[in-house]
């Protein structure tokens, strides 16, 4: 400091010191009278002020005189300004109100599990799906560790709260995905067709979902693709069952990106070493490829394209149950293409526009034969093409409330041929929906909506009202209730033969409580679901089926108690009965277990930079049909209980400039016997257990990612 200014300092300040200094003191509390430490108390326009102590008190001298503006501010609270008189010398009592931020605002949560990086307070992160042991990086398999989903590992799809796999719809960016699972053979479940890395958000709704979506009686799996990647990169992967490579390119202005990926899977070499129960006679081989293009068209606009194609061939021989000594051959060729284009933009005055279009085509060619026996092979060809377009407008009302409405059109072509017999049909499906999220207060929200649908093949219209309410008790806990009607077309194989069928219907009632803190989550739900108009196949095709499902579910996740350990436990109790297809009366169906539980354990070892994972799943026995029982004992037999322990270890390292992960995972590591049901010969004399084709699967793979900065991760010891 120069001498002059030092002199001036002295000159200017000296007279002030001779003035009487005023002291300002007081105490700051929150609205519940708890003292608030760390509050910044400031006299506006001056440096004078203080920070409150642990008991909320403050005191500071000031040279300011007369009426002044005093402000009190603290993160998470609304800043308070008040006029004071410096000379008054009174003890100030200041009460700060908590600020309303996104974290404190209640969200509709009944029936839904959300995995997201963007939103705070979600139960799962996208990475949690990838790192769940035993799930094999498959989204649906990871979802099966959550309450509500069944351990139905003999067929693909998510079986939720007493519903079949057909009753769960998969959506990517709001657009329906037909055939989200690889076509597969009887008793062998197909994996999901898309990589979990493509999605920034995953919502698993086990009931009570929004009027935006329809045609799922039980559940919706809502996937939201990532916007632009963080940076350009390329990946290479090698495993015991195949290879894959991909490229992601982000433009210099960070507004446009494209990605391309290809993979090849061949299980034949693996099955040569580890003999499966049924030997392959074709493949199994899968060629897959996917492309994406994303462009930020303006500050608020986003255009996304995503498409994939898969070509599968696989076949197995098995011993014939019907004709002892003979061999049954089953071969499948599948082609599947899916494309999805969406565009979002803010069109001004708080109005937003969403437009989407998708096209998918799936062809299964099946060749089933009892070898060296008449008649000749059965050739089955099933093809389904679906075009979909969707438009939605939404408007923000006030700070949090939203109004949405829109419509949807689908054109479906369902073709099938059994040898020379063809049964084709087309359907024009239109739907309109409207829904409002109305915030009565930041902690009390109601969602009211409805959906109307018309299907030309059924020649019928429906209207489905949906209502949910959520109330946040405090920063962590909230209660929700949901009610809704859900309609779905019968499966194509029934509509093919009877055009007089109508919609199947389910009504959901859900009550849920959840407590979400940074490091732990507790959730419980009770539900009741009523089924009506289910398809029956006897005496002729009709809609006279019915049923119910009710239960209690618990979920607990803890990331705090044990260092570097993250675990969750889920439990579902399910009581369900239905009368559908050829059932003589209401019984517990063969895909439903009464008790289901999972424990997912993840342990990170920072020194070895290794992730260890363990997943244990349990389910009580499921009913199966035994033709030797009298009719009144239909489906009264139960399979053995299901136990499965999956483990995985992934080691993260750098090889030259590539970020590399080595993965070892073993399913059913203890070799527990798993029986999902029984097949009987038509005379009921012989039976065959339905078991996994390989009791234990060992997977070893290596994935390399180039282009990620080396210093990226784990700078967490600071």
């Amino acid at each position, binding site marked *: 400091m120069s001498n002059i200014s030092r002199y001036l300092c002295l000159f200017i300040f000296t007279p002030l010191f001779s003035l009487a200094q005023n002291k300002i003191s007081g105490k700051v509390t929150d609205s519940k009278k708890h003292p608030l430490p760390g509050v910044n108390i400031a006299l506006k326009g001056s440096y004078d002020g203080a920070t409150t102590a642990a008991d909320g008190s403050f005191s500071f001298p000031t040279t300011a005189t007369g009426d002044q503006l005093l402000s009190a501010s603290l993160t998470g609270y609304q800043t308070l300004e008040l006029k004071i008189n410096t000379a008054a010398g009174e003890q100030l009592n200041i009460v700060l109100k908590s600020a309303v931020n996104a974290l404190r605002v209640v969200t509709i949560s009944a029936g839904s599990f959300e995995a997201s990086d963007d939103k705070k307070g979600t139960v799962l992160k996208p990475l949690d799906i990838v790192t769940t042991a035993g799930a094999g990086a498959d989204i649906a398999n990871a979802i099966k560790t959550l309450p509500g989903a069944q351990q139905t590992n003999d067929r693909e799809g998510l079986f939720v709260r007493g519903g079949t796999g057909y009753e769960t719809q998969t959506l990517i960016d709001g657009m329906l995905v037909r055939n989200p699972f690889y076509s597969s053979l009887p008793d062998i479940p197909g994996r999901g067709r898309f990589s979990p890395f493509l999605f920034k958000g995953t919502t698993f709704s086990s009931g009570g979902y929004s009027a935006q979506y329809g045609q799922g009686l039980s559940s919706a799996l809502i996937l939201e693709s990532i916007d632009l990647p963080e940076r350009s990169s390329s990946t290479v992967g090698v495993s015991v069952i195949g290879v894959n490579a991909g490229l992601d390119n982000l433009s210099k202005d960070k507004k446009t990106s494209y990605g391309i990926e290809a993979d090849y899977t061949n299980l034949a070499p693996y099955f040569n070493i580890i003999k499966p129960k049924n030997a392959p006679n074709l493949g199994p081989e899968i060629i897959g490829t996917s492309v994406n293009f994303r462009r930020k068209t303006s500050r608020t606009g986003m255009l996304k394209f995503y498409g994939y194609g898969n070509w599968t061939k696989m076949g197995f021989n098995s011993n014939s149950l019907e004709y002892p000594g003979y061999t049954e051959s089953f071969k499948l060729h599948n082609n599947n293409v899916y494309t999805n284009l969406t565009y979002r933009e803010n069109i001004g005055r708080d109005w937003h526009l969403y437009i989407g279009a998708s096209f998918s085509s799936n062809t299964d060619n099946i060749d089933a034969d009892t070898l060296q026996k008449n008649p000749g092979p059965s050739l089955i060809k099933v093809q389904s093409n679906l075009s979909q377009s969707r438009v939605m407008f939404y408007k923000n009302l006030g700070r949090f409330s939203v109004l949405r409405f829109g419509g949807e059109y689908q054109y479906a072509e369902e073709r099938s041929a059994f040898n020379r017999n063809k049964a084709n049909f087309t359907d024009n499906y239109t739907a309109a929906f409207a829904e409002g999220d109305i915030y009565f207060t930041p902690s009390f929200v109601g969602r009211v909506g409805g959906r109307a649908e018309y299907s030309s093949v059924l020649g019928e219209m429906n209207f489905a009202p949906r209502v949910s309410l959520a109330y946040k008790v405090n920063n962590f806990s909230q209660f929700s209730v949901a009610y809704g009607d859900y309609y779905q077309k019968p499966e194509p194989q029934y509509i093919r033969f009877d055009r007089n069928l109508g919609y199947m219907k389910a009504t959901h009632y859900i009550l849920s409580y959840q407590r979400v803190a940074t490091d732990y989550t507790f959730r419980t739900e009770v539900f009741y679901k009523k089924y009506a108009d289910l398809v029956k196949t006897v005496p002729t095709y009709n809609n006279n089926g019915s049923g119910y499902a009710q239960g209690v579910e618990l979920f607990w996740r803890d990331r705090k108690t044990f260092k570097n350990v993250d675990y969750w436990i889920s439990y579902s109790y399910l009581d369900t009965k239905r009368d559908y297809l050829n059932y003589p009366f209401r019984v517990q169906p063969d895909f439903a277990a009464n008790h289901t539980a999972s424990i997912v354990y993840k342990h990170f070892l920072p020194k070895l930079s290794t992730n260890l994972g363990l997943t244990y799943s349990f389910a009580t026995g499921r009913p199966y049909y035994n033709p030797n029982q009298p009719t009144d004992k239909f489906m009264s037999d139960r399979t053995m209980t299901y136990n499965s322990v999956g483990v995985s270890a992934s080691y993260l390292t750098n090889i030259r400039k590539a970020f590399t992960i080595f993965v070892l995972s073993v399913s059913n590591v203890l070799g527990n016997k798993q029986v999902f049901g029984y097949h009987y010969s038509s005379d009921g004399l012989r039976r065959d257990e339905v078991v996994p084709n390989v009791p234990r699967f060992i997977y070893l793979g290596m994935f390399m990612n180039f282009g990620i900065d080396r210093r990226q991760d784990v*700078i967490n010891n600071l």
Partner: protein
Amino acid sequence: MKRLFLAFLFTGSLATVAVAQSAQYTEAMTKQTSDLDSSSTFTQEALQQKANTFERIADAEKSQWLPYYYAAYMQVMQAFTLKDKSQIDPLADKAESNLDKAEALSPKNSEIACIRSLVATARLTVDPMTRGMKFGPEAAAQLEQAKSLNPENPRIYMLEGQSLLFTPEQWGGSKSKAKTTLELALEKFAAFKPESSIAPHWGETYTRKLLEQSQK
């Protein structure tokens, strides 16, 4: 003549006020920045107090980038001392809003980029497993940005050295590389001439401490 005299008197007194205010500013800032290398500053309470004081000065002045900058620096350091990780993001938000104000007053500033790098690192610590992919590279990119704006800023090399030191080797960390970078930082500190007594000049003591650790 009388008018002229009055005018003189008027401008004279205005000038006095202007200089006086900047003197008050300089004095307050000198006091607040003098102990930034002392370990007693780096407790939760002391950091919060300093952050609040800098914010008060910033709000009263409105035209100076330094108090905003120092408030952000204190807030991000406070974020590192927090046990409750849910409080890190709100503090990082606050620091970032102060940095935005600082940057509006002093664009293309290497010192501000350094603090932005620290903010990214603080956000990363909330959940390294899921946030590493995003905030790790951002922290590094901000240091690169700082380097391109002023390669002579010693704090860039201090932060780089720190990250090399605390990153596990399989992730690209290295004690020997940390040592070289920290030694470079000390050279830069020796050559560094802060623009004024209150311009950023912190970090040399901490760099020496880091260097000791890297030699262990």
